[in-house]
């Protein structure tokens, strides 16, 4: 197996090359730019036989690959932050048209003020569009998820587009060893593109025409049905990938030292690595802690969250973005899910690392120890938000 030193962005480009994508369109935006720069280089050198479309905006970039995908080509784009927000309208069109398409999103803060560092506001903002949304922890998983995305999106039971999320700089610009697989092995695993329909000038129909409210509602029901199907498809593809290539991640979630834990840290993205490091050290101190890493925020791993949290005394949910006026989006998702349990665990939502504030294992250990201390002292409680601030402020509550 060829192992190369790759940044997260180059890992995306290699997966796209391995999937033999035919059409790529993108507009440059930091920190995504080097994904399409690398792909452009691959096309220029003749290593990838694809059409690279230059466009004037992200709205057009997604529209261009949407058209290519409807015409039957395996297509790809990548963006970040404001670029993703500018695309937002077209995301709905792609999912609503039930067209398989893959996009990498390098998660980055949204202005003002300008900020290029990691933050999950951009990716969470796409939550309701009908796209499958995954978040990687490291560069190898970036490669694996991107490759798997083509299988997931093109599955007969799914036919929905997918976003692969990777944190700005922490993954996008950090080099790590990545197994990029052999081309013939990928070819044996990834079948040619399949989709529900292809536009054909000889067999004309109209697309996205005005529909009655009744038809509209049925379309929405069927998107949800496909999202629900995607849960099994994602799990099966993850298992099968493990058999072929030796790497499986656990499906919609990854559980790290959960089985004998009483307390869990729940989070998504690259900082899960720091959370695992924190868990290892807290366990050395005898604390029964684990990490439940959310790999897919859509479809949301409802059953997994319920079963892993059922026997817990407390769960700490860490968010790298805030839904102003409520709480961190992952907290909202997890707490609404745990409401289905007869006796839910104590819950706290912590807002940290927003706008790229550095959060390491020492920070996560401190946050977790404080939470465990509070549960042991007070018993069951729910706290929707606590801000873990940089510099001397530390833990701040919301006061008006």
């Amino acid at each position, binding site marked *: 197996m060829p192992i190369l030193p790759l940044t997260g962005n180059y890992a995306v480009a290699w997966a796209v090359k391995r999937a033999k994508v035919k059409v790529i369109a993108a507009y440059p935006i930091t920190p995504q730019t080097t994904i399409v720069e690398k792909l452009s280089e691959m096309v220029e050198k003749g290593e990838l036989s694809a059409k690279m479309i230059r466009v004037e905006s992200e709205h057009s970039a997604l529209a261009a690959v949407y058209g290519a995908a409807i015409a039957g080509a395996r297509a790809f784009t990548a963006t970040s932050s404001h670029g993703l927000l500018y695309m937002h309208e077209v995301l709905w069109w792609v999912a609503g048209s039930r067209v398989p398409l893959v996009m990498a999103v390098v998660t980055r803060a949204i202005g003002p003020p300008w900020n290029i560092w990691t933050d999950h506001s951009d990716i969470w903002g796409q939550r309701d569009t009908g796209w499958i949304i995954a978040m990687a922890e490291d560069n190898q998983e970036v490669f694996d998820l991107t490759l798997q995305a083509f299988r997931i999106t093109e599955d*007969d039971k799914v036919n929905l587009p997918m976003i692969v999320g990777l944190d700005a700089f922490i993954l996008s610009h950090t080099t790590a060893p990545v197994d990029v697989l052999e081309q013939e092995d990928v070819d044996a695993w990834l079948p040619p593109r399949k989709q529900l329909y292809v536009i054909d000038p000889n067999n004309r129909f109209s697309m996205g025409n005005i529909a009655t409210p009744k038809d509209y509602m049925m379309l929405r029901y069927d998107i949800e049905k*496909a999202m629900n199907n995607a849960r099994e498809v994602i799990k099966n593809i993850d298992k099968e990938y493990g058999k072929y290539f030796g790497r499986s991640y656990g499906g919609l979630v990854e559980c790290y030292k959960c089985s004998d834990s009483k307390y869990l840290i729940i989070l998504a993205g690259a900082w899960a690595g720091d959370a695992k490091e924190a868990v290892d050290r807290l366990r050395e101190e005898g604390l029964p802690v684990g990490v439940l890493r959310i790999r897919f925020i859509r479809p949301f791993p409802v059953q997994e969250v319920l079963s892993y949290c059922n026997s817990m005394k407390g769960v700490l949910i860490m968010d790298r973005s805030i839904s102003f006026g409520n709480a961190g989006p992952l907290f909202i998702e997890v707490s609404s899910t745990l409401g289905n349990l007869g006796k839910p665990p104590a819950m706290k939502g912590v807002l940290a690392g927003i706008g790229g504030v550095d959060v390491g294992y020492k920070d996560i250990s401190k946050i977790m120890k404080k939470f465990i201390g509070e549960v042991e002292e007070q018993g069951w409680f729910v706290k929707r938000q606590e801000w873990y601030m940089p510099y001397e402020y530390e833990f701040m509550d919301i006061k008006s």
Partner: protein
Amino acid sequence: MSGSLIRIKGFSLPLSISSEGSMGKTGSWRTFKPVIDYSKCVSCFMCWLYCPFSVISKSEKGVIIDYEYCKGCGVCSNVCPVKAIVMVPER
């Protein structure tokens, strides 16, 4: 829209087969009418290709505009390389 959406493999899709006149007689929307000067027309079929409503058809005489459905957008006049299509105000 007439008719319901196409279903494939158990999923309804935002696709439909259009039929002529399913939006009514859209020619009545027109404020400018494209008029062809056949002495200038070179039958390049650019107007046929560009017409967004598919109301221009090919014939032995050249192109023919179906005024029942032409909305008068003027794209045909704009793309005509020999300026054979003039937009005339409707009275």
